[in-house]
């Protein structure tokens, strides 16, 4: 098992290096002078320009620059934001919990609805249930989620007034950030209604971000179930007289979930892309909105670091999923 994990770790090294090269190259292939772009200055005196060249190490060979960049990453130095003048990593760590909170809710939403929907569709294959569920799933899969988010705001916030339009919590509540997760912080603060307010703010973004993963998981669960339901051990379970719900729940579902776990893991990349749109619509202060704002403000150190950090997170999650997959499925491990 340890060999398997080490093996996977070795395999991601080229990807890791590739990601850092892409991020490193990013500022250097931007149109315009990379030094001015990184410093965020329009016009500078020749002396200042020389200083900046030395400060950013542009006077040295490119591979030394790359090495320095890599060394900086390992020491947690991801550059300095032009607009906030703070280390990028600090801004990132402040905003990241908001994205995690939203993504976790969205994944929970997608799994709790998607897996049952897929199972029902598979068990009642070809029925009215199957067709409706899979039709809905295809609509969800084709959904422009930025539009869905706007429609939800129009209907639930505008017409019905049930949910807030944007943000993470009502402005009346104020408490210090402990975990960065608004729901947990609200509970810890002990203020009346704070937790409910945080939850209400989560509902629409969760549905928006969770829609595509929900559709993908439902479709994947259905096809995994269909495959398993035809297998010999399911027939055996049926033949020995187990009740249908036992056959489905205990024998089929457990095995069908193996590919579904991988699908769920792969959704993390999709979620990061979705977070960019969802956070922009709901003014959710996470890293997706941070990236969009950085691009429109031409805050290139932030764009560079954000690109790198998000790709590394997706890579790490995929690695974990890979290892988990090896744990539950011995056939993969021994290959």
């Amino acid at each position, binding site marked *: 098992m340890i060999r398997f994990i080490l093996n996977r770790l070795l395999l991601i090294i*080229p*990807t890791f290096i*590739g*990601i850092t*090269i*892409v991020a490193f190259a*990013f500022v250097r*292939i*931007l*149109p315009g002078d990379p030094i001015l772009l990184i410093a965020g200055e329009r016009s500078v005196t020749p002396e200042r320009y020389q200083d900046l060249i030395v400060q950013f190490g542009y006077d040295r060979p490119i591979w030394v620059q790359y090495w320095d960049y890599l060394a900086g990453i390992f020491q947690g130095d991801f550059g300095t934001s032009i607009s906030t003048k703070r280390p990028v990593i600090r801004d990132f760590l402040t905003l990241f919990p908001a994205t995690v909170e939203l993504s976790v809710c969205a994944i929970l939403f997608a799994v709790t609805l998607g897996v049952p929907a897929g199972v029902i569709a598979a068990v009642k294959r070809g029925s009215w249930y199957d067709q409706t569920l899979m*039709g809905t799933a*295809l*609509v969800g*899969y*084709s*959904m*422009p989620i*930025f*539009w*869905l988010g*706007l*429609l939800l*705001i*129009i209907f639930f*916030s*505008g017409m019905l007034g049930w949910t807030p*339009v944007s943000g993470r919590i009502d402005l009346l509540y104020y408490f210090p950030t402990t975990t960065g997760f608004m729901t947990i912080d609200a509970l810890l603060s002990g203020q009346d209604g704070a937790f409910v307010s945080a939850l209400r703010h989560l509902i629409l973004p969760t549905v928006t971000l969770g829609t595509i993963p929900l559709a993908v998981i439902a479709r994947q669960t259905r096809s995994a179930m269909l495959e398993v339901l035809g297998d010999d051990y399911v027939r055996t379970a049926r033949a020995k007289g187990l009740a249908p719900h036992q056959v489905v729940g205990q024998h089929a579902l457990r095995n069908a979930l193996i590919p579904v776990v991988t699908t769920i893991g792969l959704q993390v*990349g*999709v979620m*990061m*892309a*979705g977070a*960019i*749109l969802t956070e*922009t619509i709901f003014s959710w202060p996470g890293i997706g909105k941070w*990236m*969009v704002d950085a*691009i*429109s403000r031409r805050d290139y150190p932030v*764009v560079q670091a954000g*690109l790198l950090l*998000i*790709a590394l997170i*997706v*890579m790490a999650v995929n690695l974990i999923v890979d290892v988990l997959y090896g744990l539950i499925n011995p056939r993969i491990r021994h290959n």
Partner: protein
Amino acid sequence: MSNPVTVADPNAAPKISPLIRLREFWYYFSVNRGAVIGLVVFTLLVLTAIFAQWLAPHSPIQQYRDALLVPPSWIEGGRPEFLLGTDAVGRDILSRLIHGAQYSLLIGTVVVIIALGAGVVFGLIAGYAGGWVDTVLMRIMDIILAFPSLLLALVLVAILGPGLLNMMIAIALVLQPHFVRLTRSAVLGELGKDYVTSARMAGSGHWRMMFKTILPNCLAPLIVQATLSFSSAILDAAALGFLGLGAQPPTPEWGTMLAEARQFILRAWWVVTFPGLAILITVLAINLVGDGLRDALDPKLKRS
């Protein structure tokens, strides 16, 4: 292979009359009701795009200053000449949507052509050449796939500059690794087969081997992937347009229309609802066709 006579025509093995193939394909495709509906909707969209100029009641950029944010005609305050209402500067939404179909279909087509073309060439080279060429190409594709697609497209557009063409290039670049992987694995699957060996023995050159002998036999998965990429290209383009990085106003691109409409969502629902609905219907129709194609072209599913 001991008999040299069978080597005479290296392409003979997989040949069935194209008409029979087409009929068989249509049989499996038309069983799927959704796929047929998708195809009909998609055809209508293509026709709308082609005849946009004559179908649209108004010019897509004409601003009627006396008709700002007019609701759809069936609602109180609506005007019959603006069926789906007007936007904040008095442009007819229906006319903009009709013209927008041209952009979405253009984006999908161009992106798929670039991604498919580049992906097939790289995939053929990787699979056919093997060795370090294969390793290097596939590692590069892994790296592209390591980034969330929309994020990478976003950053690429930031590098290239916002605009319709740059956006299409960015999306194509992000989508092409899927074609590379697919082509490569199909090539690897075909390489060991007898008809390839016999073509090689008949003295086919490398290019002929790649494009004339092997490629036609890997087409089925590529067609399905191309369909799915067509719809994701439209979705991603609309998303980038929505973020202000795609087609620039006053282009009636659907995503860009949504971006302009955002600030009016609580006052005028129609400026938001219809462009998004157009995106959803288009993407859904293409995905329906894609599902139908997959079922009809995948021999494994046919028998079940």
